[in-house]
């Protein structure tokens, strides 16, 4: 038996943040929404860290070398590969979202008929999600070859 929480009732039995977990219940567009948010927040954190780490330049060559020692490690490289992948996905999916948010690529309203499949969830814009994922994977492969392959 689960205890009912008064706070659940106050917020109208809303799913809250729990509703954001498990995006696979509703298909690809929900997964892309989830990934876009996740990658966005991750990239923002990376951006803040990147602006800070590059500022070590102003403290002289020693500070810069100390920063490089911290970041040019296998874990540092893996993190950067993740950044490459997330930024590629976020950008490519973002372009798809700019088009769809403007109502482009979603088809025209018509007369729905059984089985009432939604026109907006068509493969033309859905394939944009897959293209974004593939581009991210390719970018990560290229990044790995440069960072881990040694150049």
């Amino acid at each position, binding site marked *: 038996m689960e205890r009912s929480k008064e706070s659940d009732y106050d917020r109208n039995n809303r799913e809250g*943040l729990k509703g954001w977990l498990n995006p696979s219940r509703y298909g690809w567009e929900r997964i892309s929404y989830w990934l876009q*948010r996740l990658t*966005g*927040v991750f*990239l*923002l954190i990376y*951006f*803040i860290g990147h*602006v*800070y780490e*590059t*500022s070590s*330049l*102003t403290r002289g*060559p020693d500070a*810069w*070398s100390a920063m*490089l020692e911290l970041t*040019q490690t296998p874990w540092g490289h893996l993190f950067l590969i993740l950044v490459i992948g997330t*930024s590629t996905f976020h*950008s490519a999916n*973002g*372009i798809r979202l*700019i088009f769809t*948010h403007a109502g482009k690529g979603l088809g025209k309203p018509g007369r729905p008929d059984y089985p009432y499949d939604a026109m907006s969830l068509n493969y033309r814009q859905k394939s944009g999600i897959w293209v974004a994922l593939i581009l991210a994977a390719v970018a990560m492969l290229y990044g790995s070859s*440069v*960072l881990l392959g*040694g*150049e």
Partner: protein
Amino acid sequence: MMKTRKIILHESQIMKIHYITAIAALFVVAVHILMRLIMPYSMSLQYENVVVNYHNIPYALLLESILVLIAIHGFNGLRVILLEFRQNEIWENGITIFTIAAMIAIIAYGTRTIIMANQLGL
């Protein structure tokens, strides 16, 4: 007590800025990343090579534009996410102030790096 606030920017205007900064940032960040093609990766991270980049005025301006565009786009995105968590006056005003302050702070800090690195002698 609900104060009616004067709308400085409509949400549609804020979101148009969000989309425009996204597209603009795409181009400038692509250039920033593609700079790695001009020399081997490990060489490009050496102190002297990095400082030389900041002495190049067009490149320094490119970095400044990345800073501004990504700061606006990123913190506005965070504002959008945080606005959906709670809907009371204190939270919403707090989020607005926090995101504007964070944008200004990071742009200021990054610009400081660019200007100081530009002045650095080798």
